[in-house]
């Protein structure tokens, strides 16, 4: 935070981000300054504390390492954005937290502490009790994520009925309440509609109502705006941020869209090939990104608050298959700076190391080199 200065850099977000960030900071408790400092040897302190999470599952072609050593922590009232291309393991991470990947022949290791309780070690019944209750999820495509044969009201009331000792009438009234709260007009009659009778934006609102039905303390939104058009996207993001204020829950937003996290996130985790590439406050990620992959993501994002560049920069190549992750740095084949590996072997995996307070980068480039290259890129861009 101390490095926050007036120098305007290309990565710096607009006024909205600054406003959100200020809000996030004011709600932050002083002792969690470095809540995201990764795996520590001490006991869990944050509300959600994930340590060295690995989710592997065997397929006919080989072992898929969908998540391979992810650690972060999150406090109530804070928002974490998880960013990465498709196949980077961000969705699997969130399903893993909910215990939805701990079935079949997949293997999950590491720790997921939710208020001090390890969900990886806990038995299925206990995780099921927490699921939909203390932690809930908003899914990507609301049309296919809602059951076509049940009314919206029934689907919202369902989780409430399971986790609370209430009658059907009370659950229905609760569903109407929630629909009102997420901004559905005529909620009292729309509660009996089926999902196909809702518009796309309304369906996503209903989906959010479904997730909120038990006042979750942890809310995970997996690409909540991908299936929606741009005007509705903004409304949904506003709604999520308003509800977070109201409920004080911790929110994880999973997206490939840096614009979304710029609006909402306090902290950002950049994932690549199932691993952590970079982790830091959204200020760190937008103003002082250290990983070449993050630079690529930022360069490929259209900006309205800047002079338009000639064309958007794309990251060359495609993400690696999670079965044959390259030895050494997984980003190596696509990295413009792969040659500057400071004498390290091609097969050496870069460790996640701090480059600033609470700011972690997994890259062979030294901190100085990272700063220099970013400053250079920023100068060229503007």
């Amino acid at each position, binding site marked *: 935070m101390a490095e926050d200065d007036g120098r305007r850099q290309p990565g710096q977000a607009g006024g909205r981000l600054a406003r959100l960030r200020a809000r996030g900071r004011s709600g932050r408790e002083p002792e969690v300054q470095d809540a995201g400092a990764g795996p520590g040897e001490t006991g869990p302190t944050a509300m959600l504390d994930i340590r060295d999470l690995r989710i592997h599952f065997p397929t006919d072609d080989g072992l898929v390492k969908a998540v391979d050593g992810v650690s972060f922590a999150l406090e109530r009232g804070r928002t974490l954005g998880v960013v990465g291309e498709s196949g980077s393991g961000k969705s699997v991470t969130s*399903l893993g937290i*909910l215990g*939805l990947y701990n079935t079949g022949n997949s293997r999950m290791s590491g720790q997921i502490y939710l208020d001090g309780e390890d969900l990886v070690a806990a038995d299925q019944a206990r995780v*099921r*009790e*927490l*699921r*939909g*209750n203390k932690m*809930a*999820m908003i*899914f990507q*495509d609301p049309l*296919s*994520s*809602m*059951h*076509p*044969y049940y*009314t919206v009201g029934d689907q919202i009331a*369902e*989780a409430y009925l*399971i*986790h609370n000792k209430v009658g059907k009438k009370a659950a229905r009234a609760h569903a109407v309440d929630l629909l009102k709260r997420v901004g559905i007009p005529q909620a009292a009659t729309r509660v009996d509609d*089926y999902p*196909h009778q809702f518009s796309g934006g309304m369906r996503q609102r209903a989906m959010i109502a*479904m997730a909120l039905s038990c006042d979750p303390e942890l809310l995970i939104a997996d690409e909540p705006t991908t299936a929606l058009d741009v005007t509705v996207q903004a409304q949904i993001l506003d709604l999520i941020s308003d509800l977070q204020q109201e409920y004080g829950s911790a929110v994880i937003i999973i997206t490939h869209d840096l614009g979304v996290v710029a609006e909402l996130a306090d902290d950002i985790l950049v994932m690549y090939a199932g691993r952590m590439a970079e982790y830091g406050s959204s200020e760190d990620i937008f103003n002082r990104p250290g990983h070449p992959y993050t630079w690529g993501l930022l360069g490929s994002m259209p900006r309205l608050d800047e002079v338009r560049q000639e064309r958007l920069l794309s990251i060359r190549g495609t993400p690696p298959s999670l079965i044959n992750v390259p030895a050494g740095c997984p980003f190596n084949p696509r990295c413009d700076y792969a040659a500057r590996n400071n004498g390290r072997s091609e097969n050496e995996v870069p460790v996640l190391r701090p480059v600033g307070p609470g700011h972690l980068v997994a890259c062979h480039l030294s901190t100085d080199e990272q700063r220099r290259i970013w400053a250079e890129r920023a100068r060229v861009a503007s």
Partner: protein
Amino acid sequence: MIAFIIRRLIATVFLLIIVSMITFAIFFLLPRLAGQTTYELAIQYVGRNPTRAAVLAVEKQLGLDAPVYLQYGRFLRGIVFGTHYNAGPVRAYCPPPCFGYSFKNQQPVWPQMVSSIPVTLSLAIGASIIWLVSGVAIGVLSALKRGSIFDRFSMGVALAGVSLPIFFTGLIALELFSYRWPIFPNVTFVPFTDNPWLWAKNLVLPWITLAFLYAALYARLTRAGMLETMSEDYIRTARAKGLPERTVIVKHGLRAALTPIVTIFGMDLGLLLGGAIITEVTFSLHGLGLFTIEAINNQDLPEILGVTLLAAFFIVIANLFVDILYAYVDPRVRP
């Protein structure tokens, strides 16, 4: 919803009229178009070695020389009001609904058909309950335990069930359980109203034989449907709500997977009500199937016409039933 049902009912009546027209045309118009004279048609209704005068008399009595549309009109009137037939020396009355008069048996068609309906109905309903319950249950378990020994075994048996014809499995069942170990001796039809216990006991073998074929089909269908449904996004949502796995499978998975099964079940049941021909022949049950076979063997045109219309009626009604049920099951197709 009520308007939808009424609309469908009206459409059903029209459909039945069209079916009757086509059937009637096949028996009375096509032969003429093919060059057969009304005289040749009339020969079929007279005894062996008839005199020319007798054939001409029958042709006139039955109105076979009249235009086909007039004959059809008379046929329809007979269904609604009944009609009289000159059967040799006697003037036979055929009360409504009169689906024609069988000159081979010297009897109206309708009462004969009606008397064989309970046999077919008992056979079809009993078998359908067995195959629906067992087929769906096995299909669901197979899907949930995909790749397990249970799955492989039951799908192997299902393959055998689909492949083996009823006249084979039926004869094997009869040989084993009726003759060698007479657990179910003397498989004959006993009306339910006479003796429910004997009714059920005597129908066990036909039920199981018929149900085996269909259960195999339904198990495979249910398994495929269940596998597809359980990978849907809304199943993940249901799990994310923290619902017990049982609720996820039954309320969210099975409910959706059953929709296509309901459609096929209605069609199959409708088809069987028109006569489970092979099963009835194998077990010598005098239902509509055996009635049809005998009518065809005797070239008894009025009987064939009657039973065709009755079978069509069952299928059309089954379709109506499926449509209404479908609208109830899937809100997206609700009008």
